[in-house]
Structure formats: C-alpha cells, structure tokens
C-alpha cells in the first residue's frame, strides 16, 4: 500500500494559539484527502476534506492546505481550544478507488 506519513508525532500548543499539523503523502495519483480527529476512546471523526484541484479549503476554525508539488498536506487550527486535544490523521484516496491510506497520526495537546 501507499504510505502516508506525518512529520511530527506530537504537538503541544498553548490555548488560543494556532496549530499546524503536517502530512506527507507518497502517491501522486491520490486526488482526495481528508483530515480526521480521534479523541481518546472514540473512533476517528471527519474534520475537513480537499480535492486535488484545490490548494486551500476552509472550515470552521480549520483550514487545509494542499501542495501537490511536494505532496504535502497541512491542517491549521485557529485559536486552539482544550477540546481540540486529540490525535489527527490525514488520509489519501483516489477518486476512482475505494481504499484510503492513513498516516500514523499526530497527537495534539492543548495547554490551558
């Protein structure tokens, strides 16, 4: 399978600061990407997605940036809150396929 990796396994930020979580993907044919949030003891929860024909997409307090040239994805969380503490995964998918490939995750800790 294709590998999807994260640059940092852990990240600590002060409450109110912005967080940036990075992800590298390896399959240049992937054209759809998703960020998931997984809180302790729960299943992954969809946060935001982006197609390869876009380089930026914004949601509520979150922004995903896609750089296809270097096969890099990032998730920005504005004004990070204690409830944002979780593990964050990126996933890649080809629109024509069923399979997703996940990174190992980055653990985000928000310091009050």
């Amino acid at each position, binding site marked *: 399978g294709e590998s999807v990796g994260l640059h940092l396994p852990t990240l600590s930020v002060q409450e109110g600061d912005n967080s940036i979580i990075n992800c590298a993907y390896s399959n240049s044919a992937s054209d759809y990407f*998703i960020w998931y949030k997984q809180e302790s003891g*729960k299943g*992954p929860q969809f946060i935001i997605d982006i*197609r390869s024909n876009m380089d930026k997409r914004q949601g509520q307090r979150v922004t995903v940036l896609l750089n296809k040239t270097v096969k890099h994805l990032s998730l920005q969380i504005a004004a990070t809150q204690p409830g944002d503490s979780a593990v964050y995964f990126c996933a890649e998918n080809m629109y024509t396929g069923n399979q*997703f490939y996940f990174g190992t995750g980055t653990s985000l800790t928000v310091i009050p």
Partner: protein
Amino acid sequence: DVKVTQSSRYLVKRTGEKVFLECVQDMDHENMFWYRQDPGLGLRLIYFSYDVKMKEKGDIPEGYSVSREKKERFSLILESASTNQTSMYLCASSLRLEGGEKLFFGSGTQLSVL
C-alpha cells in the same frame, strides 16, 4: 447524522476462540470497511465490502474473514484468535459524494486476546 455502530466497546477473549465483531450502519452506504489500529502503525485495512455478499482483502487479511449478508451489517471474524490480534478494531462505511468518498467510523472495539 450517519451512525456506525459497533456492538462491543471492549472485548476479552482467549487464544483459539472464534470471535465475531459486528458493525451496523444506518445510512444505506454501499461500502463498508474493517481496520485495525495499533500504536505507531496507524490504521490498516483488513477487509472491505462494496456490496452485499461481496468482499475484498485489504492489506492485512490473514487470520480474519468477513461476512456481509445484509447491506447494513458487516461482520469481522477471527477464526482462531491469537495474542497478536489484540488491537483496536474500527468499522467504517462510506458515501461517495461529489468530490470524494467520505469515511464514517464507529467508536471502535478494543479487543484483548489472552
């Protein structure tokens, strides 16, 4: 809201036992998936199904089988549980929307094989 329900939150079994993990989704999704999640390894695909009675092997199918007799239900079977199958098991279903296919996950089953 989409709901993917896994029947057990925690499960403890003995080596050699046959184990059934059940998953039900309520949104009429075509595709369903079973992943296992281990520290440092992320999510790895065991099996998936794109229709009733259809199944495809994922990346790590050895030691597992699946059953999809009804569209809403996808079962994972450990024929003879082993200690290396101790893991968090996540079921998911997917909906293909304009722009991509979105996975929805259950809360997971933490299986311990003793």
